[in-house]
C-alpha cells in the first residue's frame, strides 16, 4: 500500500512568521496525538475562540515547492540491507501512521514511496529530507544511502544515538520527477520512557526553508531572552539593593524562570541534541513551566494582598499534582499548568482591579494579555506566542513596579520631611510652655511645701527632658527606653497633680522596636482624658496599662487607661488630633504601610491600639 503524501501546512513557503512554521512542523503533530482528554478539550476550546485559521492550505510562493510530509508508512521489525531497495515488495509489511510508531527493542525499517513533481525536479531548488524522531536512522533514497548522523544498532551499546532533528541534502541528480522510495533503518535503544510516538516528522521538501526556519525562530527567541534577562537583572538588583519585598523578588525569579523555559524550548532548533536528551528536556520544560506559573501567581498574591491567598495557593498546588496524575502528555501538562497559573493570576488581578488597588490596571492588562492569548488557542499560544506575551506582561509589570517605586519614593521623601518635623515636635514637647511652665509652677509649690518631693520632681523632669532629646532623632528605639520616658512623664504629672500614676507594662519584650514618643504621646493623652487627680493616691494609683500580643506576624499593643467622668468630655479633635497625627506619622515613618492605629473611648476606658510587624 502506498503511503499518502500530504503537503504540510504550506506555511514554510509563504513568508509567514518562521516561528510559527517551524514549531508547527516540528512539534504540533506529536502534541496533538499525545494530548489526553484535558488537552484535547483545551485545544477544542481554543479553536472555538480563535478566529484565525490555524492552517493555510495554499501552497504557492517564491519557491513553489510543496513540502511532502509523510503520514503513513510501512514498517518491519528486523534488519536486511535489501530492504533499502526500491524494487522490494513490501506489500506484506504492516502500515501505520507515522505518529503512532513507538520505540522497538531491535532494529526496524520504514519504507514509503515519495512522488516528486516537476517543481521538485528543478535544479535551482535543492531538496532535503527531514526526520524528527526519538530514533537513530540510516536513510536510503531509492536504495542508496543518504549521509546522516547517528548509527542504528541491535542494542544500546552498538547504537550511536542520532540527533533529534536530522536534515540531509538530497542531491539533484537523484531527485528527478517521478516515484521514489524513501527507506529508513532505525533503532530506539536510547529512549528513556515510552512516549506515545517516537516519530514526529518525516518530510521531503525545499532544503533552504527547512534549514532556515528554526534559525529564524531562534533569533526571535534570543531577542525575547535578552528582554527577560534585563528584566531579571532589574528586579533582582532592585531587590538586593534594598527593596526587599517579595513581589519584586517574585518578578525577578519569574523573569529568570521564563528565560530558562525559553532556553529549554529554543535549545532544540538552536543546537539540537542526541534524541536521548529529549525526555530530560521535556521534564525540564515541564518543571520550568510550573515554576513560571507558580511565581506569577505568587507575584500577584504578594503584589495585591487580600484574603484567601493561602487557600487558593493550596488549591492550586493540589490541582498541579492532579494535572501530573491525570494528564499523561508533557504538552498537555504544560498547557494545564499555564491554564491554572494564568487563570488564577488573571482572576486575582481582576479582584485587585475591583478593589481599585494601585497599579492593578497594568497588571490586569499584562496578565490578561497572556491569558486571553492562551485561551484563544492554547497550543499555538504556548508554541508561538507565550514568550512575546510574557515579555509584554513583564514590561507592564515592570511599569507597575516602577510606578510603585516612584510612589514609595515620594512617600519616603514626604516621610523624611515629616520625620524632621517629628523630631522637632518631640524635642519641643520638653520646652512646650504648657508642660514646662506648669511643671515649674507646681515644683515651686512643692519647694515651699515639701522640698524633698520638689527634688524628686526636678529629677523626673530632668529625666524626661533628657530622654526626649536623646530619642527624638531615632526612627525606632527599644521599647525599654520609651517606657523609661513614660515613667518619667507620669512621675512629673503625679507631682503636678499631687496624685499617683502607674504604668503597668510587665511581660513585654522591651527590646522590641518602638517609634520614639508614641507611647509617651498616648500616655499624655491618657492623663488628659483620665480622671481628675482625686482619683489616684499612692495606695490606689491611676493605672495605665500596656499589653502586647503576637498575631499573624504582627505585634499588637493595647494601652488602656481610665476615662474621666463624662460630665466634661474633651473635644477629641482638639485634644487628640495633634497627638494622634504624631503617632501615625511616626508609625508610618518606621513601618511604612504595615501598621494599624486606632484610639478612642470604650465604656469607661480610653483605649489606644496599634500593631506593627513582629520582626
Amino acid at each position, binding site marked *: 500500500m502506498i503511503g499518502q503524501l500530504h503537503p504540510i501546512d504550506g506555511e514554510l513557503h509563504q513568508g509567514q512568521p518562521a516561528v510559527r512554521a517551524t514549531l508547527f512542523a516540528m512539534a504540533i503533530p506529536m502534541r496533538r496525538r499525545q494530548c489526553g482528554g484535558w488537552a484535547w478539550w483545551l485545544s477544542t476550546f481554543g479553536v472555538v475562540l480563535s478566529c484565525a485559521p490555524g492552517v493555510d492550505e495554499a501552497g504557492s510562493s517564491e519557491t513553489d515547492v510543496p513540502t511532502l510530509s509523510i503520514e503513513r508508512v510501512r514498517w518491519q521489525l528486523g534488519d536486511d540491507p535489501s530492504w533499502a531497495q526500491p524494487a522490494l515488495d513490501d506489500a506484506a509489511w504492516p502500515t501505520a501512521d507515522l505518529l503512532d510508531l513507538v520505540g522497538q527493542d531491535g532494529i526496524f525499517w520504514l519504507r514509503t514511496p515519495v512522488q516528486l513533481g516537476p517543481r521538485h525536479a528543478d535544479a535551482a531548488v535543492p531538496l532535503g529530507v527531514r526526520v524528527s524522531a526519538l530514533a537513530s536512522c540510516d536513510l536510503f533514497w531509492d536504495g542508496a544511502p543518504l549521509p546522516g548522523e547517528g548509527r542504528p544498532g541491535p542494542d544500546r551499546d552498538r547504537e550511536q544515538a542520532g540527533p533529534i532533528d536530522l536534515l540531509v541534502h538530497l542531491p539533484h541528480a537523484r531527485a528527478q520527477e517521478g516515484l521514489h522510495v524513501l527507506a529508513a533503518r532505525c533503532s530506539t535503544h536510547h529512549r528513556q520512557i515510552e512516549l506515545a510516538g517516537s516519530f514526529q516528522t518525516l518530510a521531503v521538501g525545499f532544503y533552504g526553508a527547512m534549514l532556515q526556519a528554526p534559525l529564524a525562530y531562534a533569533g526571535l527567541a534570543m531577542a525575547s531572552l535578552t528582554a527577560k534577562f534585563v528584566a531579571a537583572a532589574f528586579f533582582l538588583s532592585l531587590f538586593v539593593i534594598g527593596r526587599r519585598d517579595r513581589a519584586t523578588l517574585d518578578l525577578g525569579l519569574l523573569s529568570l524562570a521564563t528565560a530558562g523555559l525559553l532556553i529549554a524550548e529554543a535549545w532544540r532548533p538552536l543546537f539540537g541534541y542526541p534524541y536521548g536528551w529529549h525526555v530530560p528536556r521535556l521534564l525540564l520544560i515541564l518543571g520550568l513551566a510550573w515554576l513560571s506559573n507558580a511565581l506569577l501567581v505568587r507575584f500577584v498574591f504578594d503584589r495585591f494582598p487580600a484574603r484567601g491567598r493561602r487557600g487558593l495557593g493550596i488549591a492550586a498546588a493540589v490541582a498541579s499534582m492532579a494535572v501530573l496524575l491525570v494528564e499523561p502528555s508533557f504538552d498537555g501538562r504544560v498547557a494545564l499548568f499555564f491554564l491554572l497559573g494564568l487563570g488564577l493570576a488573571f482572576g486575582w488581578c481582576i479582584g485587585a482591579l475591583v478593589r481599585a488597588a494601585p497599579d492593578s490596571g497594568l497588571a490586569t492588562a499584562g496578565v490578561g494579555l497572556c491569558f486571553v492569548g492562551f485561551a484563544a488557542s492554547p497550543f499555538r499560544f504556548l508554541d508561538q506566542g507565550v514568550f512575546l506575551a510574557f515579555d509584554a506582561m513583564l514590561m507592564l509589570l515592570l511599569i507597575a513596579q516602577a510606578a510603585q517605586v516612584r510612589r514609595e519614593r515620594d512617600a519616603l521623601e514626604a516621610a523624611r520631611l515629616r520625620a524632621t518635623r517629628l523630631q522637632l515636635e518631640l524635642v519641643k514637647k520638653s520646652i512646650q*510652655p504648657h508642660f514646662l511652665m506648669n511643671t*515649674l*509652677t*507646681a515644683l*515651686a*509649690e512643692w519647694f515651699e511645701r515639701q522640698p524633698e518631693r520638689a527634688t524628686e520632681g526636678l529629677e523626673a523632669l530632668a529625666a524626661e527632658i533628657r530622654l526626649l532629646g536623646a530619642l527624638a532623632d531615632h526612627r525606632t528605639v527599644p521599647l525599654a527606653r520609651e517606657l523609661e520616658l513614660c515613667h518619667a512623664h507620669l512621675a512629673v504629672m503625679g507631682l503636678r497633680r*499631687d496624685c499617683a500614676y502607674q504604668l503597668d507594662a510587665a511581660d513585654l519584650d522591651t527590646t522590641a522596636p518602638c517609634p520614639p514618643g508614641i507611647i509617651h504621646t498616648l500616655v499624655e493623652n491618657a492623663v*488628659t482624658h483620665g480622671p481628675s487627680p482625686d482619683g489616684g493616691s499612692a495606695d490606689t494609683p491611676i493605672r495605665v496599662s500596656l499589653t502586647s500580643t503576637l498575631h499573624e506576624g504582627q505585634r499588637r499593643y493595647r494601652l488602656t487607661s481610665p476615662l474621666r467622668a463624662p460630665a466634661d468630655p474633651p473635644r477629641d479633635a482638639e485634644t487628640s488630633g495633634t497627638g494622634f497625627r504624631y503617632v501615625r506619622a511616626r508609625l508610618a515613618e518606621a513601618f511604612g504601610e504595615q501598621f494599624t492605629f486606632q484610639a478612642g473611648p470604650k465604656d469607661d476606658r480610653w483605649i489606644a491600639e496599634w500593631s506593627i510587624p513582629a520582626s
Partner: protein
Amino acid sequence: MRIVIVEDERMIAERLRRLVTEIVGDRLESLTLLDRFSLAREHLATHPIDLLFLDLDLYGRDGFGLLEEALASSFATIVVSAHHDQALRAFELGVTDFVPKPFGRDRLAKSLARLETREPALRKQLQNLAVRTRRGIDLVPVARVRYLQGADDYTALHLVGGQRRLHPKSLRALETLLPSPFTRVHRSFIVNLARVRSLESHGGGKHRIILDDGTDVPVSRARIAALRQDLRMDDS
C-alpha cells in the same frame, strides 16, 4: 472679696489658693477652686464674684471662649497662663492682668494690689470690649465707642452709628482698662477724644463736649483743665 480660681493643674490651683489667701487676708469673703470649663461657667452664672483667676489652657482646651464670657461680666479677670505669648491677646480683650507661670508671691501680690487700688492696668492695650448679647458674646472694637455713660451697676456704651450696648462692669472698672484716647470728663462719662468735634463753654463754668455726630456730653468743672490739656496734646 469673692474670688474664683479656674485651674485644672491641682498643685497650681493649690498654690494660687494658698498665696491669695495669704495676700488678701481678712478681706477674703470666699474662694472657690474649679478645674473644669463647665463647672466654671455654671458657677459664674449663679454666684456674683469680684475676681476671677483664669487658666487659659484647661485640659488642653483654649480658654479664650471662657475669657470672653468672663470679660463681659462685672468682675475683674486675671489670667494665669503658661502661654506667655497669649498676654497681648488677653490684654486686648481687657483682662486686668496677665500673670505668667511660674509665679511667686510677689507677682501675685502686685497683681492684687493693682486691682485694689484701682490703678490703671500697666498695659492698656484693650482693643475690644466683650459685650453679652442674646446671640452670645460680641467683641466691640473700642474705636467704635463714642462715649461711655455710667449707671448704677453697669455702663452704657454709645457706639458709632447710634447703637447702644450695656456692659456690666462699672465705669470706674472700665476706666482702668480703656486706652489713652478715652478720658473721664465727668463723674458719669468717659469720652473717646478721637470722636470730639469741639468743646463749648456755656458760662458759669459749665462746659460741654460736642462729639462728631452732634451729641453733647457734660464736662465737670474739676476736669476741664486736664481735658483742655489732653485735647491740645491730641491736636499736636
